[in-house]
């Protein structure tokens, strides 16, 4: 690397932010795919969850990468927000941000903070109990078997979505994720320098992704709420 150095320059930080975001967007799609199986088949959902929860590669290779990716993304998000705030030391008395840029693009930190808070709840709901069972109680069987099939994951899922308040929080959080992605998806492509004849089509795809993926998660939460 030149004297600009890794992450020392604004463009390097911007690209790193985009790369972490690409990874998160890919992960989100994978997460949605597995969750969606719970709508069709408790068995398939359990098997997949059991695989993801106990497979060596997933647990000790992919999961650490994911954790680093998420932490990097929001820490960098805070760093950039702070740096950018300081780049205008005296603020305007009158500033019409909405005249030239979308609400989503100007409030990434806000939508991001909602996602972060949601992730706290999400870990409390699903990840911490999982860690407790696996690492404290030492039970790696995906217990509560029924006819030899692990069913704990599905039960745990439907159990959580019984409470209306929790379902409500989940839905609102995914609306904010959608807002985050409505700007973020295409912003990430622009950050890595992709702006060409495919951009118009990609923008449409980005809008579809940003709406349909969070909507999928909302659908799953509502589905289980009203069906169990």
């Amino acid at each position: 690397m030149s004297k600009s150095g890794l992450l020392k320059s604004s463009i390097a930080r911007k690209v790193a932010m985009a790369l972490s975001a690409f990874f998160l967007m890919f992960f989100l799609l994978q997460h949605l795919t597995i969750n969606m199986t719970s709508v069709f088949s408790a068995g398939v959902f359990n098997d997949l969850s059991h695989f993801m929860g106990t497979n060596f590669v997933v647990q000790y290779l992919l999961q650490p990468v994911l954790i680093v990716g998420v932490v990097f993304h929001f820490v960098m998000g805070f760093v950039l927000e702070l740096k950018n705030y300081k780049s205008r030391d005296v603020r305007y008395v009158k500033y019409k941000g909405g005249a030239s840029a979308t609400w989503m693009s100007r409030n990434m930190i806000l939508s991001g903070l909602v996602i972060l808070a949601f992730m706290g709840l999400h870990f409390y709901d699903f990840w911490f109990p999982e860690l407790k069972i696996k690492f404290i109680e030492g039970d790696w069987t995906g217990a509560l078997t029924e006819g030899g099939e692990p069913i704990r994951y599905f039960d745990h899922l439907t159990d959580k979505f019984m409470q209306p308040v929790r379902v409500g929080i989940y839905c609102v959080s995914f609306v904010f994720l959608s807002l985050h992605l409505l700007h973020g998806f295409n912003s990430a492509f622009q950050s890595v320098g992709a702006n060409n004849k495919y951009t118009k089509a990609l923008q449409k795809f980005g809008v579809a992704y940003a709406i349909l993926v969070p909507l999928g998660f909302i659908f799953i939460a509502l589905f289980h709420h009203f069906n169990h």
Partner: protein
Amino acid sequence: MKVTLKVWRQKSASDKGKIETYKLDNVEDHMSFLEMMDILNEQLILEGQIPVAFDHDCREGICGMCSMHINGEPHGPDRGVTTCQLHMRMFNDGDTIYIEPFRAKGFPVIKDLVVDRSAFDRIQHAGGFISVPTSGNTQDANATPIPKPDADKAFDAAACIGCGACVASCKNASAMLFVSAKVSQFSLLPQGKVEAKRRVLNMVEQMDKEGFGNCSNTGSCEVECPKGISLENIARMNREYLKASVSSSE
């Protein structure tokens, strides 16, 4: 028409500054915004007050000197124009108009509405040039064939007048649109290829040193730019910066 002006007054760089209110009741709607400011200043001089300092030069939208953040937007509410090209017909009788200097850490206020935009000059010095023999044996530029699409894009980028509206409008006070226009204008042409890597690395380094913010792709710059400089230039600069970062030997 009658207007109430809320103008930022600041005696010097070190003064704290504040908004002052002035009333004008003899404004014509075909006046340019700067002509309206001239009337304000004539009135202030007659009243024995100090006129408002503001930047201007060509008054025809080509020099980029006129600045001013008008009612929350650089160069005011119209699109594709500088402040000197903005007409009072864009406002209504009885309007209150806020007039502030461009705000950015990289653009410190000198007096009233005048800001120091020499940060742009320093960025330009860092790499916004090409090296050609100027001894008199210079080859005619026309002798170098250039594909029409490249020439058009370079020309569009070269339309940047360095006004700083992109920085002023950006929520991050980022100078990426300006710098990317200056980088693109040269890198698209064969004459600019020689120093392409060094240029993008050095200009971005200088941009960061001047205290401008990080681009977060809000696109505000493109909307407010009087010369219609496209975000495509920022993507191009990002690409070139990445390539140069990993391949430059310096």
